[in-house]
């Protein structure tokens, strides 16, 4: 491994590939086929395959404008929403196919998909659902603009955050009424715990709000110096890792927590905001990106930190793992993208 100026060994240099993609990395995801899509602020999606050199990544012109949201599609490839009002599917080889046009001068701000074939796209107050073939299933209306969407692990429910709370819909329900989780204020990023028992949102006021669905118990997690954009549960839902503080803030969702419990803070201390987090798909390890471009892995139990990428390439704006947990990818606001191979050698 090479020495860096900071003295730390960064895994990106020994086990990774990276490339300057030239525009804000708005989102990334590993597709269910194993490839990784980077959605950019110039409307492009770059598709990277583990093992490939970065020069070989496929490029697809997905949107006329910017990609606003990117998710792994139901079977393979990626789903993107753009500020051209389109919902688009990108195949692993970089072919672009339009699923729907959802409005002139409207933005498709959030997309999500479930392996069952369900796709969801939010435009303003509306959440459109599509099936595996791309046929429109239904449109779910909310009282105000949707700030974030999430499917539960089984794909039975979809949650959408908005002003004054979140709506939890049964996808297959006929009556078309959501369970409304109320809390005054503007809610954006949203996550459902892996066991489907909790919903957590990130609020405008630099705080999280949560609901325990069994008894509608409220949870309020505050003290963040900036907005939280990333909410990521560990595989079995024991911990919730969050961005928005100058450390990786991890709330315990066991033993009665997070009520009355303090969070665990990892990799803090140097006064730089954590801007993105993603929990490992199996182990209790969290990958985190910071506003100065630093990317690292932190083990929750021990607090041990492993540096992945050095600071200096822009604030980390996207981060994610492949399903096997062998590859980690990240992207930054200035368009730097990297992928690291963490598999045993």
């Amino acid at each position, binding site marked *: 491994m090479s020495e860096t100026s900071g003295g730390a060994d960064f895994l990106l240099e020994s086990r990774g590939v990276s490339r300057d993609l030239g525009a804000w990395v708005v989102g990334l995801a590993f597709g269910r086929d194993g490839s990784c899509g980077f959605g950019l602020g110039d409307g492009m999606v770059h598709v990277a395959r583990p093992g490939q050199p970065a020069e070989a990544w496929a490029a697809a012109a997905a949107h006329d404008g910017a990609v*606003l949201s990117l998710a792994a599609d139901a079977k393979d490839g990626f789903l993107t929403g753009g500020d051209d009002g389109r919902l688009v599917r990108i195949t692993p080889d970089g072919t672009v196919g339009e699923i729907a046009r959802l409005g002139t001068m409207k933005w498709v701000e959030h997309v999500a998909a479930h392996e069952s074939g369900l796709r969801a796209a939010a435009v303003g107050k509306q959440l459109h659902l599509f099936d595996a073939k791309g046929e429109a299933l239904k449109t779910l209306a909310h009282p105000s603009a949707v700030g974030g969407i999430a499917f539960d692990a089984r794909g039975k429910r979809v949650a959408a955050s908005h002003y004054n709370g979140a709506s939890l819909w049964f996808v297959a329900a006929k009556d078309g009424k959501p369970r409304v989780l109320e809390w005054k204020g503007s809610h954006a990023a949203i996550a459902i715990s892996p066991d489907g028992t909790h919903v957590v949102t990130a609020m405008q006021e630099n705080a999280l709000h949560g609901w325990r669905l069994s008894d509608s118990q409220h949870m309020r997690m505050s003290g963040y110096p*900036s907005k939280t954009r990333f909410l990521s549960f560990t595989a079995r839902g024991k911990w919730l890792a969050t961005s928005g503080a*100058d450390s990786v803030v991890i709330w315990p969702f066991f033993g009665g927590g997070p009520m009355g419990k303090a969070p665990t803070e990892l990799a803090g201390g140097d*006064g730089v905001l954590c801007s993105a987090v993603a929990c490992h798909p199996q182990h209790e390890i969290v990958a985190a990106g910071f506003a100065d471009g630093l990317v690292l892995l932190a083990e929750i139990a021990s607090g041990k930190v492993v540096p992945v990428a050095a600071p200096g390439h822009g604030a980390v704006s996207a981060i994610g793992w492949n399903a096997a947990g062998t590859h980690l990818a990240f992207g930054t606001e200035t368009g730097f993208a990297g992928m690291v191979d963490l598999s045993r050698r």
Partner: protein
Amino acid sequence: MAECRDMPAAAVPHAAPAPALTRPGPFAPRRRPSHIPGQPNPAPRSPRMSETTQVPVTVLTGYLGAGKTTLLNRILSENHGKKFAVVINEFGELGVDNDLVVDTDEEVFEMNNGCICCTVRGDLIRIIGGLMKRRGKFDGIIVETTGLADPAPVAQTFFADEDVKRATRLDAIVTLVDAKNLPARLADSKEAVEQIAFADIILLNKMDLVTEAEAEEVERRIRAINPYAEIRRSTKSDVPIDAVIGREAFDLKRILEREPEFLSGEDDHEHDGEINSLSFEVSRPIDPERFNAWISQLLANKGQDLLRTKGILYYANDDRRFAFQAVHMIADGDFIGPVKEGDPRRSKLVFIGRDLNRPVLRRGFEACQVDAEGTV
């Protein structure tokens, strides 16, 4: 701008308390945010992009039929070589095909659990966040409000949201006025009055429909509400684009750097409406602590009725001038260049608002002066 103290956004990001502080519910009743407007001695600013990278935002207000859409079409179709993102809310009226036009529903919400000074436009926060990710910079963003909109939430969005504040600056609130119909609107619409009260620049439009005498009367009515806005006459919204965009007319510090006499002039307007303006001048230097205590209290208690407050202050023992301004309860202040030779050093404060009590405000401001020599 100063802040609701409940909003860590305005605090120094890296020094804020760790999330460990909090015990998630069951809850005690939420504490109401305290409003502490601008400190005469501004705290060190939190790290932010240099101002040159902030995209200027022009807010376009005006009653229905005043000519906003015509002006927007003109700005978008004119060959000025500039690139503007436009946020509209009345889809279909705009006849220009432009990929940077965003159609949105105005979504006003209260931050901090109902704090009025933190009423912001949620849709703008989302849209500006999205625009910043696009490749290629804009020369500006233009936000059109609906005819019935209160301009305050739009203005406050530029101070209440950390991301918006970092990426953009409010350039000017431009209000279009129908010269023929303004008297009727002032009589029947609270919003029409507020839009004039908030304006930095007023476009007196449809001049072809009025006589010179009528135009003068309308200007007199406008001046009675807001004597500090620049008034520009036009027909069919036909003004050079640089008359309304890139004006730096919102930020008092910038205005005073350009026009040192901006707030001067006697307060001799006739006041014939519920909303009007008052200005006060004092000759002795201002005690920063007294001023801060008084204005904090005033904005906290009366901020809902104080639409805009602007002032230029000469502090005791300081050779710089201080520019103070507030939108409702959100206040801001900054020192501007050294006092010039021969400057009479008279501090001035102007209020545009509703039900202003002249004697009370005068006494309050006068009491912010340092004690006169020879008194105890």
